[in-house]
């Protein structure tokens, strides 16, 4: 049961409650080591009080989501920026 994690893909459902676009396809830059990659490629720990997504490079926390009965808490402090692909304006 060592390293019992899933891919960032598994965040797609919980984040679809909050965002109208698919955040898992966005690129994120890790505040810890600067690694850039899709949210879908983060390591997600789901056996926990919330969802914890870590950088596959340095294992720092990039994103956290906690769902309470009446709210969602989203912590993005471990990511410098999100690049969200959009249709040309």
């Amino acid at each position: 049961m060592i390293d019992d994690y899933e891919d960032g893909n598994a965040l797609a459902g919980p984040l679809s409650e909050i965002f109208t676009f698919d955040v898992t396809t966005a690129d994120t830059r890790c505040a810890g080591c600067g690694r850039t990659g899709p949210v879908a490629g983060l390591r997600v720990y789901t056996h926990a009080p919330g969802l914890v997504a870590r950088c596959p490079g340095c294992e720092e926390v990039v994103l956290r989501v906690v769902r309470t009965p009446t709210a969602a808490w989203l912590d993005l402090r471990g990511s410098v920026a999100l690049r969200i692909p959009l249709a040309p304006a």
Partner: protein
Amino acid sequence: MGIVSPGFHGRRRGAGVKLPPGQYLTEDFPVLSAGPTPRIRPEDWEFTVTTETGQEHRWSWRELLDLPGETPTVDIHCVTKWSKLGTSWEGVSLDTLLADVDTAADYALVHSYGGYTTNLPLEDLLDGQAWIAYRFDGEDLAPEHGGPARLLVPHLYFWKSAKWVRGIRLMDEDEPGFWETAGYHDYGDPWREQRYQGD
């Protein structure tokens, strides 16, 4: 409440015991983890209490084991809604560890190998309510359950019982820890169902 799926009960058993509101009984011991499991060799393990004035008190693994141990049997309640009754532990009471620590602090921030933190009032660590536990069910505490040693504060939700405990910082002000900064309650009393901020 969602649409009921007929005949679905989940893994829960044993009705009839008194549990905190919203909790269900479990027989096994689910492993919760918010990150990779740190592997700390006992010879590298250290436990540090830092007071509000910056004074440090340090124990090595040997020094911890040389302190008088206790064998509490307690019920534990995880905020993910399982409760496990009558768990038996061995460890050193925080009363013993903090006996010679000179402090007037009101709060504690517990920190762990791997970066986890959790906060609670200092008084909840005292008076026979909390231990640094290194054995569970007669065996050395397994890494996935927080070994070599974890905090055990069973009267609060189990996320306060930090696995892989490394130290405690005593402070005048409360400072939220890992889950407490992401919506979870600063105190976390299961009998008052203090799961989330504002409960």
